């Protein structure tokens, strides 16, 4: 996916300012930035939920056109409290995917909990359901909006490892937004640093999965510098 000159204005404020980059197919691209940098806006642009100036793959963004076959993982799991785990998955999945629910729930270590409601699950379990939902949904693109930011370290580790292993199976195209440098270095093949709506750094990290949670990567220093000082 090629993004060319993506600009999004809210009134006089530019949330995105001429963003041009490539989202590699079958890879995980992290978008790193502080609050207000434009990360979530970029995600909304890519998913086609808002209009924008510029083009994606040669198509203008003047009209809102929701991208089909796009899965989403939110910061908050967004599970309907009135539905069981299985019903929550069925809520978004097409019928032909329903028979894969059991296997996926086992994969994310939630087998035996299909009939529980979200209120009876822990925070980590709820996010596992959301991850299962995202990976089960037939998609060409998975967008993740700070899915680990509200989790404690142990939980974050287990869920990052889960996403890593699921990606290894599906090798889908993922764009994931975070403000956490460690998350970006653990989970991405390329990290884009956004600062005030502009890309200030694009850094590749082709190390294989799984990556060690406890060891800093070589890219982290550059990412931190780009985040704090800005780097062209």
């Amino acid at each position: 996916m090629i993004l060319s000159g993506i600009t999004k204005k809210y009134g006089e404020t530019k949330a995105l300012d001429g963003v041009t980059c490539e989202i590699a197919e079958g890879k995980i691209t992290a978008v790193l930035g502080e609050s207000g940098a434009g990360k979530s806006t970029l995600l909304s642009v890519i998913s086609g939920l808002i209009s924008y100036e510029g083009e994606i793959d040669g198509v203008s963004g003047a009209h809102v056109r929701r991208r089909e076959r796009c899965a989403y993982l939110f910061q908050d799991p967004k599970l309907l409290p009135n539905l069981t785990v299985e019903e929550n998955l069925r809520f978004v999945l097409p019928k032909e995917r329903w028979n894969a629910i059991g296997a996926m729930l086992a994969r994310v270590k939630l087998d035996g909990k299909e009939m529980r409601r979200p209120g009876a699950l822990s925070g980590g379990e709820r996010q596992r359901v959301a991850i299962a939902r995202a990976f089960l949904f037939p998609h060409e693109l998975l967008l993740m909006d700070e899915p680990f930011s509200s989790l404690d370290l142990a939980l974050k580790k287990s869920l990052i490892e889960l996403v890593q292993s699921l990606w290894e199976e599906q090798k889908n195209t993922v764009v994931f937004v975070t403000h956490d440098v460690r998350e970006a270095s653990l989970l991405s093949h390329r990290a884009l640093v956004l600062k005030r709506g502009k890309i200030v750094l694009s850094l590749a990290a082709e190390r294989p999965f799984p990556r060690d949670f406890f060891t800093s990567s070589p890219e982290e220093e550059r990412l931190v510098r780009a985040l704090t000082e800005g780097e062209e």
Partner: protein
Amino acid sequence: MKGNRRKNLLFSVFAVAVLWLAWVLAYFAVGNDYLLPSFSETMRTAGGLLAERTFWNSFLNTLLRTLLSFAVSLAAGVGFALLARLFASVRAFFAPVISLLRTVPTMAFILVLLLWTSPSFAPIIVTLLVLFPAVYAMALSAFDETYSEFGPLVLSYGVSKPRQALKMYLPLGASSLLSQSGSVLSMGLKITVSGEVLSSAYRSLGWLMQNAKMNIDMPRLLALTLVTVLAGFVLEGICALAAKGARRRLS
């Protein structure tokens, strides 16, 4: 927890006692039975009312009218609010309609209603026209709140509108709707009684009240008023229980 509940109950009983005392004091202060009859006489009259067949006939007629209006308002209000949530054009269509219904005075259409319907049926329509905008607004607010939390989910995953309606909006809105429906229902009872007075509906609480006033039978008028208020409380209580049940089912 049990201690708190007991304490709250005591406070409620205390409030009723305060109201009773206020009535007794006001009775002596006013010193005019036409303006405020005594509590004891009113209670005596209320007891007599409960033994009257005419009263029960009238009470049931009024209650049935109220329940019918409420049921139709609820169905229509929730139904159209759901459509308004799902389709922006429906929301835009209903915005001026709801404003109009909220502001049109009852007297303006009661005469027309009496021509097209009957004195028995007109109060039902009057109540419906008042309750429907209230229920619609309530339901739409509940659905909008649900959308603010789960809108990104259904938009991103392209969940179909029927599925959104049946699995998300209606179940999640039910608890909020039920908890507010008690006050809507008791308001409906009051409006039905007013409508019955306006349309001179025979064998109704409104008719009984109007007669009591005409006959300057103030204890009877107050007794009927008390009965109506009590009925309102009971209806609110039933709805509160239903809301509790719905919340328990969700958790």
